[in-house]
């Protein structure tokens, strides 16, 4: 089991290093001279030289990479070109806002997806199942940047129940959480249904029924316990949808999170901030997935006992 954890930690480290390197390389995608693009045409050569030096762009790429890693290992993300603030301070509040939104969206997704998925699997092929399939097909096809405005149109403008945007007012989180959560709920419903159907067709479910156990116990003790592992893995992967979806959702609802900061920084050509945001979002995703993976391993006797 220790071997299992060590292997996973090692591969986590390898992937994280790869992610950091790819994010580092992103800056080199900027066409032409990034310094020129960032400062605009009016900048003096002295300004450019200074920025070049402060970004380390005058060094060979391997040195730049090593420096980038070195700074990261001390928790430094550099500073914003726009506001000259250290990026760490800039993002702290943003991370909290995004975490809040993401958590709310996951709650929406689980509250809908888990019962609907289990119910659909137990009623395989019947009305509830077909309704669930049709609804999820629709929900997965609605782009969030259309769902968001439609929800605003209905709940904020027509009905006047909820605020249009921002984070200050009470209930402001409801619409963005729904916008982000509904497509995820649909995806989760399908995954839960599929893994439950898989488990329900297993021989050991027949064994459980042949023992004379009541249906509730068969479903919970034997079916859900086995389906829980793939469902947990899916929830980990769902976080990716949450984080990527947050970028668009936050922009629609003016939610002051990391996603909104990313887009603002792209528009301001504040590339170090873009780099930092992308890094924070993807590393969170990598770490959470590795954690769910290890947790599943610990909960699965076949892995735990190996």
């Amino acid at each position: 089991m220790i071997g299992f954890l060590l292997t996973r930690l090692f591969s986590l480290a390898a992937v994280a290093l790869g992610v950091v390197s790819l994010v580092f390389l992103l800056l080199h995608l900027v066409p032409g001279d990034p310094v020129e693009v960032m400062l605009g045409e009016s900048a003096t050569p002295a300004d450019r030289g200074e920025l070049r030096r402060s970004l380390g762009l005058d060094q060979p790429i391997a040195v730049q990479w090593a420096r980038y890693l070195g700074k990261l290992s001390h928790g430094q993300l550099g500073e914003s070109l726009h506001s000259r603030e250290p990026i760490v301070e800039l993002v702290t509040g943003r991370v909290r806002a995004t975490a809040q939104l993401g958590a709310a969206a996951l709650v929406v997704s689980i509250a809908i997806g888990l019962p609907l998925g289990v119910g659909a699997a137990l009623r395989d092929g019947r009305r509830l199942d077909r309704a669930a399939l049709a609804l999820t097909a629709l929900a997965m096809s609605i782009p969030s940047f259309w769902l968001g405005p439609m929800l605003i149109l209905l709940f904020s403008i027509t009905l006047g129940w909820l605020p249009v945007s921002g984070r200050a007012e009470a209930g402001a989180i409801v619409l963005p959480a729904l916008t982000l959560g509904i497509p995820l709920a649909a995806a989760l419903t399908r995954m839960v249904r599929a893994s439950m159907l898989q488990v329900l067709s297993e021989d050991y479910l027949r064994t459980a029924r042949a023992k004379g156990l009541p249906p509730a116990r068969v479903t919970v003790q034997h079916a859900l316990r086995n389906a829980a592992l793939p469902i947990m893995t899916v929830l980990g992967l769902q976080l990716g949808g949450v984080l990527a979806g947050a970028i668009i959702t936050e922009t629609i609802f003016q939610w002051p999170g990391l996603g909104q900061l990313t887009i603002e920084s792209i528009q301001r050509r504040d590339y170090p901030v873009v780099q930092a945001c992308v890094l924070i979002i993807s590393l969170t995703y990598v770490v959470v997935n590795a954690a769910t993976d290890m947790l599943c391993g610990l909960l699965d006797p076949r892995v735990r006992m190996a």
Partner: protein
Amino acid sequence: MTGPLLSVSDLRVHLDTGGPPARVVDGISFSIRAGETFVLLGESGCGKSMTALALLRLLPPAGRYASGSITLGSTDLLRIPEQAMRDVRGRRIAMIFQEPQTALNPVLTVGAQVGEVLARHRGLRGAAMRDRVVELLDDVGIADPRRRAEEFPHQLSGGMKQRVMIAMALAGGPDLLVADEPTTALDVTMQAQVLQLLREIKERTGMAILLITHDLGVVAEMADRIAVMYAGQIVEEAPRTEFLGAPLHPYSRKLFESLPDESRRGAPLAVIEGVVPPLNTEFRGCRFETRCERRWPTCALLPPKWIDAGAGRYVRCHLHDPAMRDIPEGVARAGRAQTAADGPRQKSHAAATLIVRDLQVHFPIQRGILRRTVGHVYAVDGLTLAVPPASTLALVGESGCGKTTTGKAIARLLEATGGEVRFDGIDVLALRGAALRRLRREIQFIFQDPYASMNPRMNVADIVAEGMVAQGIGRTAAERLQRVDSLLHQVGLDPGAKSRYPHEFSGGQRQRICIARALAVQPRLVICDEPTSALDVSVQAQILNLLRTLQEELGLSYLFITHNLAVVRYLAHEVAVMYLGRIVERGPVEEVMARPRHPYTRALLSAVPQVDPETGRERIRLRGELPSPSSPPSGCHFHPRCPVAEPRCRERYPAAVSVGPDHTAHCHLLAPP
């Protein structure tokens, strides 16, 4: 004496699959008395497993009861509410299944799964429940039951899992145990242990057993009474002795005649022509009529009645109907000759000989972050054998002994780690590139699963011609197509089949296509890896007949890999018995089968259930199971399980000892002191 424990009357089960329903169980009636073993015998798809599930009301979602009653004691199980049925399941009727690997819940401990039944039906909780679980595991012969109860299914071997299933079934103290092919997934030595256990439990508890099987050997070992099922109906019912002595129904007879056996060597096995009719058709006459050699016109027109043949025997056949005594004897239809005598004679090959010396195939076990090699699986570890020209060497052993690995290494599908393989004097293991491709022409391979070994996207003509294309046999496509025709003819298929796809054929036909594909490159040695183990007995007979005729016609040599000793007796000239990567005994087949010398060979032979009702045979029961090939026991690999092991057996591996003409065995006890 009160009435029977369980009686089933006119039970009909339909499966809705779109279109007309499949009548998988079509009006069967039988009864089981308290304390007896009642066997339902039949080939796959005859409806025997569906009958078992029907008794417990565990039909799959597509299944429904069309009519009939199932009476247990005085209750009709089909009339009680589901809740009451749950008190019957596990409490009065318990069930064990074919695949112990998948029948246990992987995330619950064995103890919890047995305990669940005790809590449900016996009201046991806490320590009392745990103690009873340990007792039950002990009863079914699980060593160290207290520790095993805390383990998960994946930590147990297949045989042990089936024991746990039995313990689970016993927990509720049922009156009837339904056992659906309980030993089919197990090796022969494990099978013997589990059958023995079932017999002991029956003695001890007086519980009745409904045993479902396709294996006549198991029938002979276990049955008090037998019912034979065919296409959803029971066609014959008889007490044990009468049935084994002389079965009445032509189908039952065929089942016996198609068993490969020593006494049938050299002669073709009886085969049952055709296939089981689809169950969603409307039957007018006898269901077996199209395949029956003793049919006569009435059989196609009138369904046969259930006829009392006296002495507790019943049969569903017009031949035994006293009202139809005037059946002319001569209507028996001659079975079609299995071989295509007019098929194209291939050029006769010079005799080939395969010699394998000290072959080793070791797989590294890699662990941890850096994929370090922490050990090896010694799958094949110093194996020596020789296949004489135009004859068959059977390589016999239980699963996991390395026999398939041996075959694949000889065919260069796996890389050997050591040793020597010589075919016709050519060093096979040293060949590379074009030379290796040329050798492919000489050595062919037939796989266990004929369906998996064909590309589902290619039609039969392309499949059979693939080797000819690769080896440049036949100049033009037309020439190759002509050869495909004659090859299909040779293996007993209609050449019209060549534009069809693999899924359109039955298992036996698929294996024929695979044989044609191998023959297309005119090999001299064919390695057959369990080619009939996925097939029903009657189909197995067809394939064995075909292989035997092809050997006579073409002078082929076979390396025949199998776990089925009956097949060995029928087909092989020489036999090599393999245990944990090495050959423990080899010699001419008559010699080894009649006078086995190695303790493992003896145990293996005695574990095979015999159809022959003769009793008093000495039985050798092996302890434990095949050890892991990654850490073989010291000295003689077999010593931990050997009933006659001595201290020296632990110390070094025994050398080959000659025990007869061409007959050698590796055992210290055979060596002169």
